[in-house]
């Protein structure tokens, strides 16, 4: 009996503790102050006196880390009164801490914030980020960046509209999905790089007839299919509609005829073996090494794979933007590196803006290129003379200046990464058809756009 009573008391105590504790979170916002207008921006950083600028970023990989270290060094040389206290961690770690970091009492001055709706959009809606419009005018960021790049960091102040409105961050690097191929393999099959989507479809057929795996895809991790479907979708759907869908803004429909056509084509690729026998059973990080060993004819994916594949394939590896899409202009999935933002409660906002300006300046772009990264601006002029990075830089430049850089489709809603990942897996695995896939995607998209 004694034991019973003790257990009872324990449970009761625990319950009381829970009830007595205050509600989670706080009712006070992030202390959002109104952002400075262009004529109020303090640009004389030297006059601010000695200060420590706290920077949290996720540029931890080789080339990125080298570039940012070099940039921090030059910044401190230029402004000896500023000491930069840098905290670098992996993307996942930073992403999961961002909410707490922004709403805490001791916030960083500069923070890399993922531009997806579930991240940047939520923080904007909660007033946790500084509206950079005034800084952008003062420093001339609109001249430096193309509108299509800047739109990836714009939200309406309530966080509802993505792609328009105020600027909440600035990115240093670019990303683009395109087509990797081996010139030797194409020569061997008597094929040429496709100039139109029709040519690409017949290349896929020809490769299959030759007994090759036409498109290398490792989709065990669910998200890689989005980087193949995105470019393919641009052949069927006009860029503006894809942007609306991808940014989770109201006004488009996944079940429209053109989207159905894109999904149908993707499903056919899955069923016919154009993506290999079992793309859903192959891991992303196993797929690209297989490609470097001569398996597969094309690999549709992000430019970040270039340097690692080039290390094995050398000059034989090539990269191209997908053929022109439904609008007659090239459009493909891509984006920017993670943008640098200023928390609303940052103590040194002026110095933070100067830092962001510095690391995205024209000189900074050259430094990023020197260190092997892909700068978001001046990409064409900074392109290396040869190698796959030359192709990648040129493709990115063509897409951002003449075409459209389409958003990653998983930006759309907080749950879209999961919904789209699972749906595309089922589509290419044959567990659902184009109509079923369109309905699943539309359900998530419309639930979000109606709710917001």
């Amino acid at each position, binding site marked *: 009996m004694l034991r019973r009573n003790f257990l009872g008391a324990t449970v009761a105590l625990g319950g009381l503790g829970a009830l007595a504790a205050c509600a*989670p*979170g706080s009712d006070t916002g992030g202390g959002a102050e109104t952002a400075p207008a262009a004529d109020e921006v303090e640009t004389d950083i030297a006059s601010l006196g000695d200060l420590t600028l706290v920077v949290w970023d996720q540029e931890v990989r080789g080339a990125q880390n080298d570039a940012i270290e070099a940039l921090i060094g030059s910044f401190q040389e230029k402004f000896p009164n500023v000491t930069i206290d840098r905290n670098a961690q992996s993307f996942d770690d930073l992403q999961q801490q961002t*909410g707490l970091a922004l709403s805490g009492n001791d916030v960083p001055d500069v923070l890399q914030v993922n531009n997806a709706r579930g991240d940047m959009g939520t923080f904007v809606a909660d007033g946790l980020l500084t509206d950079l419009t005034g800084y952008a005018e003062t420093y001339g960021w609109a001249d430096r960046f193309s509108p299509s790049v800047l739109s990836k960091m714009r939200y309406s102040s309530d966080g509802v509209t993505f792609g328009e409105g105020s600027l909440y961050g600035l990115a240093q690097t670019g990303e683009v999905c395109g087509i990797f191929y081996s010139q030797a393999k194409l020569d061997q099959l008597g094929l040429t790089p496709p100039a139109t989507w029709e040519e690409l479809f017949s290349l896929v057929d020809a490769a299959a007839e030759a007994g090759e795996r036409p498109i290398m895809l490792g989709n*065990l991790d*669910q998200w890689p299919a989005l980087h193949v479907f995105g470019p393919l979708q641009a052949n069927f759907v006009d860029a503006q509609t894809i942007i609306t869908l991808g940014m989770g803004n109201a006004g488009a429909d996944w079940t429209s005829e053109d989207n159905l056509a894109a999904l149908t084509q993707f499903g056919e690729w899955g069923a016919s073996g154009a993506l290999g026998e079992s793309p859903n059973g192959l*891991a992303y990080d196993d797929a690209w090494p297989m490609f470097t060993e001569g398996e597969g004819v094309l690999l549709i994916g992000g430019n970040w794979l270039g340097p690692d594949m080039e290390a094995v394939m050398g000059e034989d590896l090539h990269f191209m933007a997908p053929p022109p899409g439904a609008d007659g202009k090239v459009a493909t999935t891509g984006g920017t590196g993670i943008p640098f933002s200023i928390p609303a409660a940052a103590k040194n906002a002026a110095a933070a803006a100067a830092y962001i300006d510095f690391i995205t300046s024209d000189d900074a772009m050259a430094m990023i290129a020197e260190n092997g990264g892909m700068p978001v601006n001046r990409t064409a002029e900074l392109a290396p003379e040869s190698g796959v990075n030359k192709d990648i830089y040129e493709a990115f430049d063509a897409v951002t200046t003449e075409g459209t850089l389409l958003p990653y489709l998983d930006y759309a809603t907080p749950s879209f990464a999961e919904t789209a990942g*699972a749906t595309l897996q089922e589509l290419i695995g044959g567990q659902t058809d184009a109509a079923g896939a369109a309905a699943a995607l539309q359900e998530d998209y419309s639930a979000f756009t109606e709710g917001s």
Partner: protein
Amino acid sequence: MGSGTSPGAVPGARRGRPSAVARGPLTPYLFILPAFLVYGAFALYPLGRAAQFSLFEWKGFGASTFVGLSNYVDLAADADFRAAIGNALVLIVFYAVVPLVVGLVLAAILRRGQVRGMGFFRSVIFLPQVIALVVVAVAWRQIYSPSGLLNELLGMVGLGALTHGWLGDPGTALAAVGFIGTWVEMGLVMLLMLSGMSRIPAELFEAARLDGAGAVREFFAITLPAVRGEITVALVLTIIAALKTFDLVYLTTSGGPGNSTTVPSYEVYFRAFDLREVGSASAVAIVLTALIFVINVGVTRIGERES
């Protein structure tokens, strides 16, 4: 377990009369207090907070809204969540039932036969328990890959028709993940069974043999009843492992293909960190905790009743 001697049976008189304070009704609690404080701070308090969070709509930062039980009501109507619970129950077969059967048989064989290098076999079978699950998951992902070891072996023995991406097919993905669990838990179960069997007096087996019992009879008449306690312990441990599986699913399939291998723990992670629905994630966690608790109380009850 738990059926040992009660405190009253300790012959206190021999150690001298305890003082009035020591005999006070609160004394036992004072002894428990330090441990209870640690337990309360690191187990009960977080559990209580999770239960509290589950009553709110909260993003993990900023303001929260009290929504009562609506997170739980939503769960009841959530097909993804029900599928996750169903998958977890299937995993119990792979994590608990199969390892128990195999572990029992293996242990009986190892005990009976005087195998040379028995220590070696034991270590090999126990090895998966020692390896970090992250490593296990990465290794098995390779084995199940379309060009992986399993498909190669199938090809070599003429079963090429069966080869496919095991984790990429909704028909086999859950079983493939489950089998990794079988492989991991088997060693633990076998070791538990072996330790139980080593307590059985050798005379019992001799007597049985003199009476003409064979290996099978011996197993069912002597070995199995003797290790009932160990079976209960093994089931409790492995069922908990099955229900709270997270790392294997996260690292091998991320819940895919489609949603065919998602489990409640993965749902907790997904809701809390990807969707930023801390309330809903807490509700899943509380339901999962309750489920684990109920199933294990059931197993322990049955185990105790039969012994």
